[in-house]
């Protein structure tokens, strides 16, 4: 009998809590002045290079759609509602409403921080996946001051802390198979950001507009995108005049396998724009290839240049490269000392690289055609010594 009473009481409490939550939710909506009206005419916002998202504007709100880069299929949509705007009443249920400008964000990828930094939005970041990112003094200061919290990487978030931060949006990597359902159930707005899936270097930069849209910085984003685009295209046309395109090999072997970018990937595009010829440029893939060592050796042994990324607090030399695998000595680029690399421990390649394709391109052109870049000091890459 007592037990039953207790259960009833718990049930009663539960109903009360639910009602309270409903009330809260309503209050929130009223706060942001979102009313429902008939859908106004949408006009598409013109994007130049990005394939992963598109935007259409109407009076009072914007429709943000996320698309797969490969087949341009919409996989998620958001309705961004201006401060004095409204939500169209015939909006499908699965479209999440986001009041803009967004007040704060949690960034689960380092590139998001770079985008935020470029648009002066560093103070909007309340949480990041890891505070260890090589980034900037400003970022480290904000972390040590406690303004930016570390909330852990995918699948093992400090969930309670994340919810407690009450971020306007949680920006994640647009990766299949990762489950953010828990965050959504907790009432958070999760937006997958697929900047790194763009194969066009300027396509990645154009995600600036996505950030601009969320935080009311569209004009700044446009201006910055245009200036990076101008720089990139200027360098690209400079390199387009070259008569000889050196052949470039990428990556290193691991366990008998060699991981390389596909022929239509971001890196392949950039090497081409820098007046070089990527060894696998005929390959139609945009992703990466896993090839057998001897395949790559056979094709790469005569490549003029060899480029790779490495991660080490120490310096790296030809001797250490040889210690990794004695077969590397057979490569022409090794013999002619035309091996160059980016140490991602020291350089923010993964953090800022996406936003600085013009700097990366300048580095590449300097490596392949130094005569075109007199007096240039490479930023990300260096020749192996």
């Amino acid at each position: 009998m007592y037990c039953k009473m207790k259960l009833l009481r718990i049930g009663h409490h539960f109903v009360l809590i639910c009602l309270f939550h409903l009330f809260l939710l309503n209050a929130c909506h009223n706060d942001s002045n979102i009313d429902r009206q008939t859908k106004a005419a949408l006009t598409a916002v013109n994007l130049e290079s990005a394939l992963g998202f598109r935007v259409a504007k109407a009076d009072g709100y914007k429709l943000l759609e996320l698309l797969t880069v490969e087949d341009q299929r919409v996989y998620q949509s958001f309705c961004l509602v201006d401060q004095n705007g409204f939500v169209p009443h015939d909006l499908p249920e699965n479209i999440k409403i986001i009041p803009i400008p967004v007040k704060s964000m949690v960034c689960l990828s380092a590139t998001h921080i770079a985008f935020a930094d470029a648009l002066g939005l560093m103070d909007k970041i309340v949480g990041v996946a890891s505070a260890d990112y090589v980034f900037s003094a400003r970022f480290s200061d904000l972390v040590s001051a406690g303004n930016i919290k570390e909330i852990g990487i995918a699948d093992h978030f400090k969930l309670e802390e994340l919810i407690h931060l009450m971020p306007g949006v949680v920006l994640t990597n647009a990766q299949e198979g990762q489950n953010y359902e828990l965050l959504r159930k907790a009432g958070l707005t999760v937006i997958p950001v697929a900047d790194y899936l763009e194969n066009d270097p300027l396509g990645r930069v154009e995600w600036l507009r996505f950030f601009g849209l969320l935080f009311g910085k569209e004009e700044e984003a446009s201006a910055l995108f245009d200036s990076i685009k101008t720089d990139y295209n200027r360098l690209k046309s400079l390199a387009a005049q070259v008569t000889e395109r050196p052949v470039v090999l990428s990556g290193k072997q691991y366990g008998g396998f060699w991981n390389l970018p596909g022929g239509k990937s971001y890196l392949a595009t950039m090497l081409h724009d820098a007046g070089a010829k990527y060894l696998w440029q005929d390959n139609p893939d945009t992703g990466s290839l896993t090839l057998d060592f001897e395949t790559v050796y056979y094709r790469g042994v005569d490549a003029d240049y060899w480029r790779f990324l490495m991660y080490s607090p120490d310096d790296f030399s030809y001797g250490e490269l040889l210690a990794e695998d004695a077969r590397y000595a057979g490569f022409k680029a090794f013999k002619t000392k035309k091996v160059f690399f980016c140490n991602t421990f020291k350089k923010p390649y993964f953090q800022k690289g996406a936003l600085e394709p013009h700097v990366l391109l300048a580095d590449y052109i300097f490596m392949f055609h130094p005569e075109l870049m007199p007096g240039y000091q490479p930023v990300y890459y260096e020749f192996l010594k």
Partner: protein
Amino acid sequence: MGTLAVLTIVFFLLNMLLGSVLIPVKSIFAILAGKEPEIPAWSAIVLHTRLPMAVTAALTGAALGICGLMMQTLFRNPLAGPSVLGLSSGASLGVAVVMMFISLPGGTLVAVSQVTGNISVVAAAFAGAFSVLLLIALLAARFSSNTLILIVGIMIAYAVNALVGILQFYSLKEDLQAFVIWGLGSFGNISLAQLRIFVPLVLIGLALSSLMIKPLNILLLGEHYAKNLGLNTRSVQILVILLTGFLIALITAFCGPIAFLGLAVPHLARILFRSSDHRIVFPATILTGALLALICNIIARLPGFDSALPINAVTSLIGAPVVIWLILKRNSFKSLV
């Protein structure tokens, strides 16, 4: 036994002939004879990629088979194999620490390959496996029960795997991928220069193991009987554990945990020769192990294709049905254990 030896040699040569890059047979023999081929890259591919891989595969298959054989006899358990004493798990833990705990966030697969090239992964794997081995040997010195050691070994494997799991749980995707690739095993990690260390060590291990043929035969009669015959079962036990431990630690350090061969090869050898006499089964296991590993390596290399498969995928996928088929066909499993 003669056929098996010939087959092993044939498959060793096939390992040299087949690969992603098509090289004419004539050129391959010319290269092996020490001549320069028309295309210099061919010589590097044959001598520095295919040759060390084939030698590694053959020795690994043989040595793991012998480890399995000795352990199956010692523990009187048909399921005993390199993984039961927790040595592979110990090696995994060592490598996991190097790859995932030490490396900092932001590292990539590309970055980690640098660690493997260095001897640190090999050293970590060896250290991990050897610490578990020492622990087991200490236990073996204290308790004589084989069953006890077997159970403790399996328990250690569970505990060590749990530690590896925790490291995996908190590591970055890139490090995790590098670790997963290591865990899939590879015969391609040993360079021609490293073979100079690997080959003599494996051969010493095998030679010392061959001294155990007689005591192992006596052990087959049963522990009491062996004692009555004046065999010091304790020292045999400890010697077998040390020898198998040394070989497994060595192989796991260089090739990663190679699945399945150690467990299956002794069964295949006993079925093929219808005997459990170690004087026959010991050499048979060496040949069968080498042959099976060489066959698996050819399949894994996917001749004619640009890519390849991880070796463990092949050993288990191809080997498991073969063993099941043989057992069902011969139906002589019960006589073996």
